[in-house]
């Protein structure tokens, strides 16, 4: 079937046939998991639209921006300071890597025992399936886990890659390292865009990204109500879309959605009955279209009311201090904010444990599901600690390790259902 976007996709060198197949699967998947929900909010139509146009309108917008001389910068990790990208007048896109397609191609150049997320981004590139990657003038990698670090070396042969070094401890010397990396990134952005990052622009960018974080914080506060007014699946989708949609539009639309939620909460209306067991997800990020586990959880009689994840609160919890006036002050504020990220690649990482317990208690959850991607060392190792810590707080936890394939659906369903029975 031809679409109005074929010419654009062809120009981006996508494999058109395979791409059509991808869109079809995505559409079906989306219908089953999202559109079939009862009592969805009107405000979600915006997200349905954005998602249906994920490879269409949004890509067109990116191409328009490029025509006007803007650069498109892609990133895979919430550690990449988006504020600097925006201050350099470039577009920042969080690249997703949540599907299995292209895995076979990826396994030719990467070890099989690599996590699905890494295989997916490499696979998307090799298979010519992602118009976002193809639109990027620069893709920013980071030295978080070893798997990513080494994958970027291979990836750099196929895409314009720039790598930032992320420290793995939080001592004074690590902060110094991170600050020098932020400065290096700033220079790189200035070179590639030809724009100077001024204090005024940076101030504006910091305020903008903070606004987006605030609206997502508001969303999280609203959904904490009993009964929760929105499904966890929908909130995950919002978090996912937040990575690649235009930040101004996104913030406004989610604000409108929150207004609707507020009314629901006031009226005591929920998306599920108020005695539905409330669960929280914790662990590895879930990139589009990785909806497998949330779908299983919410079709097993539970509802998800929080995500301790990079596609979740790890991305929105901390704001950048907005009081900085000079570039120097603002950079320091940026550096401080990003050093608060409690990704499992850090050692030690006690903050994450504390945060999980706080979140679980605040949200009054009956249990936590820890989501780890198979072969992800950092999160697998932390899963054990998280479980011990939660146990100490009297909160049950189920550890799930899986990838993007659908082979283990039945197994996962049994586990999740048994967990829901256990905590109900």
């Amino acid at each position, binding site marked *: 079937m031809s679409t109005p976007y074929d010419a654009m996709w062809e120009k981006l060198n996508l494999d058109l046939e395979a791409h059509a197949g991808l869109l079809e699967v995505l559409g079906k998947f989306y219908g089953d998991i999202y559109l079939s929900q009862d009592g969805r909010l009107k405000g979600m139509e915006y997200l349905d639209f954005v998602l249906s146009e994920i490879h269409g309108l949004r890509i067109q917008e990116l191409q328009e921006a490029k025509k006007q001389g803007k650069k498109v910068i892609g990133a895979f990790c919430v550690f990449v300071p988006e504020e600097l990208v925006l201050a350099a007048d470039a577009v920042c896109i969080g690249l997703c890597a949540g599907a299995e397609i292209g895995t076979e191609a990826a396994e030719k150049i990467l070890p099989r025992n690599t996590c699905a997320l890494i295989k997916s981004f490499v696979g998307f590139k090799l298979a010519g399936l992602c118009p976002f990657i193809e639109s990027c003038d620069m893709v920013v990698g980071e030295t978080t886990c070893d798997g990513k670090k080494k994958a970027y070396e291979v990836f750099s042969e196929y895409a314009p890659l720039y790598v930032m070094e992320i420290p793995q401890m939080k001592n004074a010397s690590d902060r110094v390292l991170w600050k020098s990396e932020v400065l290096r990134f700033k220079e790189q952005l200035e070179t590639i865009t030809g724009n100077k990052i001024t204090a005024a622009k940076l101030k504006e960018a910091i305020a903008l990204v903070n606004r987006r974080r605030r609206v997502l914080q508001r969303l999280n506060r609203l959904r904490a109500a009993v009964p929760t007014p929105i499904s966890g699946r929908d909130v995950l989708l919002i978090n996912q879309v937040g990575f690649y949609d235009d930040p101004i539009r996104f913030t406004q639309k989610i604000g409108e959605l929150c207004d609707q939620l507020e009314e629901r909460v006031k009226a005591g209306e929920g998306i599920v009955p108020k005695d539905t067991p409330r669960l929280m997800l914790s662990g590895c990020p879930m990139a589009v279209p990785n909806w497998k586990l949330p779908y299983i959880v919410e079709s097993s009689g539970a509802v998800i009311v929080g995500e301790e994840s990079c596609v979740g609160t790890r991305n929105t919890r901390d704001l950048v201090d907005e009081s900085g006036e000079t570039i120097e002050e603002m950079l320091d504020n940026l550096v401080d904010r990003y050093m608060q990220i409690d990704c499992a690649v850090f050692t030690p990482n006690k903050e994450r444990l504390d945060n999980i317990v706080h979140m679980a208690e605040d949200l009054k959850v009956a249990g936590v599901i820890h989501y780890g991607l198979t072969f992800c060392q950092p999160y697998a190792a932390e899963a054990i600690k998280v479980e011990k810590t939660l146990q100490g707080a009297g909160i049950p936890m189920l550890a799930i390790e899986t990838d993007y394939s659908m*082979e283990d659906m039945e197994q996962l369903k*049994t586990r999740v259902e*048994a967990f829901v029975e*256990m905590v109900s």
Partner: protein
Amino acid sequence: MNKQDLVAGIDIGSRSIELVLLQGDRIKDWAKVPTTFDPMAQCRHLMNGVRATKIVATGYGRKLFAETGQDNGVAAITEIQAYALGARYVYPEVRTVLDIGGQDTKVIHLTPVGRVLKFEMNDRCAAGTGKFLEFMATALQVPLESFGGFALKADKRIQINSMCTVFAESEATSLMARGETPANIAMGLHLAIVRRTLAMLGRVGGASPLLFAGGVAHNPCIKTLLEEDRKETVMVPEHPDIVGALGAALYGRKTL
């Protein structure tokens, strides 16, 4: 609730389907059939002529059965809950339930009052399950029913390292080529399963007393090795394969 009400529990597993009929607190009848390629037809066959007030399904086919099921609505619970309930019925003191079935192994840690505290299931491969034993018994040309007794005749303990069905077979073949007796090899294979099971038991806490259920509980060698390691008597119910179906029926009774 009427004392005479009949409640049915049906456990639709990957290898076999079991039915338990409860009348009041008493098991009135039970039956077991192979799953075959048409499990729903087997279920209908089992349920034929059964007039139960309530039916509860468990096992991997529970959803399908509940959906295509009877007019009065069939409830479904997971194997975890079913085994927890069933185990408490046969042995009220139980704190840990081990169930080795056709394709998966489950370990369930119960609180003193019988609530599920934590559980583990093996991941998608069949290592350490009934399937593994079945495969190895065939490879050694010993009938599955006597495989455990055969292994107990071993005169020494050799170590089989691989738990993957394919690799374990080639390991067994090469041991055979080196002149190792089939009984010793069989023992090695049983030891491998028990090692794996003990690791799972360790992960959920493994409190005593332990009840061993599921099809593999018929195997005396696994039981003996577990007891040796845990230095305690391991409870095996008279009919270890119907614990899940029994649990489902008990759940039905509770929710009548």
